[in-house]
């Protein structure tokens, strides 16, 4: 058997920046002063910022040491459910850093920015092809902003019909961003429960849908990793009452090349380029959350939109019904380059990506269900959800198990989400993990499950091999110390 990746090694301590600084050092080559000083009036000028002074070596060692305290996709399997922690190709990074793109000013006259516009234009076309919808805006800076764009378009749609609706239906399995985005738009989220199969029933949706319903937000596949099989029927119910269907595309990695959003009855769908399209998560962003719509809603998309006229690309603001702007410029262009590069690298093989993502998740589900409770034992999509019910007898929780998993060299899955499963353990392996790495992860989880029975204290004390032991989050929240 292969060794587990987790081990001990020499990890360096590193103080805070200002604990190692010394006045008078500088870690940056300062540009030559070739003009005279032009001092500001005293009533405007302040003191120099209270920043630490460090040499370049100080700074390089500081961040290199800090980096070694992180776990990352490039270090090992990172099976966070609903996050799609797939491999982030290096060529994408190189291409996004090409000076012609990285250095481009967003307000350049478009005739000298044609390459950037062309890239965005083509990426929009690719995303319409992948979703089956008709038009796209790349402007949302992340998934949640894509959701906001969607809600704003629903709002604008009803307004254009002279009606003002108040409610958005949100299933109990939804990401927290869904109700928050709806509320930001002034809508009251109405919760609808999933059935004992873990999906929405048309009856449950019909029961809460009425003339006040602006729309439904539905994640498909949902956060239990299950395909919402009744989505077409649900869409018809909502449409009959005049509402719209918003699909949270966070889990698109399961169904590329397989489903057609328009056929499902979806009117609006956002995508997360930092999930499905391989751009790195950056330890919390930047992401990119393009929003795709049907033809009837295209006029509400954020502006400016990119148009092609006489072989030239241009920005157009000529959409009077547009919801307006969400980003100062056009969104996270640097992230778009990486997604564009990924799509060109994969081409129609994106379907294979989804197939293998689903294969990997089902494999993990099948192999772990003997040691972890599986609330919904049926074929899953790209992720599977277990619970800690089997470990309850030993007073071991989900948190204890995943902390112990760290010692084996794996990042924990998403835990305690979705809320409909108590003690949830949500595993999304993604397609870029090999069978060997999956087997090692499965063995590690099995070993942890065994330890839960035989040596539960080991789990409660875990992790033991990370830079720090378990942290006291309660004290941190009771007496917040947010800056040094």
């Amino acid at each position, binding site marked *: 058997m292969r060794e587990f990746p987790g081990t001990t090694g020499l990890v360096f301590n590193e103080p805070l920046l200002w604990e190692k600084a010394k006045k008078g050092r500088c870690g940056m080559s300062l540009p030559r002063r070739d003009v005279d000083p032009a001092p500001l009036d005293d009533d405007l000028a302040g003191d120099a910022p209270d920043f630490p002074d460090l040499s370049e070596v100080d700074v390089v060692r500081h961040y290199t040491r800090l980096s070694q305290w992180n776990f990352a996709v490039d270090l090992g399997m990172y099976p966070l459910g609903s996050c799609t922690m797939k491999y982030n190709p290096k060529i994408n990074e190189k291409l996004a850093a090409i000076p012609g793109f990285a250095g481009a000013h967003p307000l350049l006259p478009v005739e000298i920015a044609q390459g950037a516009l062309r890239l965005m234009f083509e990426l929009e076309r690719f995303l319409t092809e992948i979703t089956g919808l008709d038009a796209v805006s790349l402007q949302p800076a992340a998934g949640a902003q894509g959701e906001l764009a969607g809600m704003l378009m629903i709002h604008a749609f009803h307004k254009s019909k002279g009606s003002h609706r108040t409610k958005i239906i949100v299933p109990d399995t939804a990401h927290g961003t869904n109700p928050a985005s709806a509320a930001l738009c002034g809508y009251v989220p109405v919760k609808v429960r999933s059935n004992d199969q873990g999906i929405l029933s048309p009856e449950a949706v019909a029961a809460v849908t009425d003339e006040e319903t602006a729309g439904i937000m539905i994640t498909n596949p949902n956060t239990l990793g299950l395909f919402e099989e009744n989505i077409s029927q649900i869409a018809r119910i909502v449409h009959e009452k005049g509402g719209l269907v918003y699909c949270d595309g966070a889990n698109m990695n399961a169904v590329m090349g397989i489903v057609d959003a328009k056929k499902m009855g979806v009117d609006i769908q956002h995508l997360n380029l930092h999930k499905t399209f391989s751009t790195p998560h950056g330890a919390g962003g930047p992401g990119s959350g393009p929003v795709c719509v049907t033809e009837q809603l295209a006029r509400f998309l954020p502006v400016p939109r990119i148009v092609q006229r006489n072989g030239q690309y241009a920005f157009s603001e000529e959409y009077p019904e547009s919801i307006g702007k969400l980003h100062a410029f056009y969104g996270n262009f640097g992230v778009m380059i990486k997604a564009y590069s990924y799509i060109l690298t994969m081409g129609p093989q994106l379907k294979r990506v989804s197939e293998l993502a689903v294969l990997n998740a089902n494999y993990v589900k099948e192999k772990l269900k003997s040691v972890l409770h599986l609330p919904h034992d049926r074929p899953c999509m790209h992720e599977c959800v277990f619970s800690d019910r089997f470990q309850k007898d030993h007073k071991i929780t989900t948190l204890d198990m995943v902390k112990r998993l760290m010692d084996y060299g794996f990042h924990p899955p998403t835990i*305690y989400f979705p809320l409909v499963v108590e003690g949830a353990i949500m595993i999304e392996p993604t397609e870029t993990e090999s069978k060997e790495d999956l087997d090692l992860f499965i063995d590690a989880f099995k070993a942890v499950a065994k330890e839960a029975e035989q040596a539960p204290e080991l789990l409660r004390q875990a992790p033991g091999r990370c830079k720090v032991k378990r942290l006291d*989050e*309660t004290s941190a*929240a*009771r007496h917040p110390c947010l800056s040094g």
Partner: protein
Amino acid sequence: MKELGELNLPDDLRYAEDHEWVRLAGDKVVVGVSDYAQDRLGDITYVEIPQVGDAFKKGESCGTLESVKAVADLFIPLSGEILAVNDALAESPGLVNEDPYGEGWILEVKPLNAAELDELMDSDAYLLMLERLE
């Protein structure tokens, strides 16, 4: 988490469905949250309480209790006006965990309608409700 049998549910209190307790003290009532509520929420990190003089109708949200990873509304179990709040919770929200029926009290309320008190559960009925809930 405590088993239901391990919970401390004093007999001299009345309980609401949303896990608040009420103690009659002359013409006013003291309100807090039950041992069950504090146990299920976990270590409480912040208590958001209304201001003295605010008035609420029975069942309205009048504040929140926060733990590291959860937020629960505090629903007022009786209609009335807030007479006093436990200022010690600002500095020591953990009192709600350590002593939910004593130092961890949350509000004093001047009830608008004394009959509402009779609508609340006694400890046996509350425990029965918890058993059904679990």
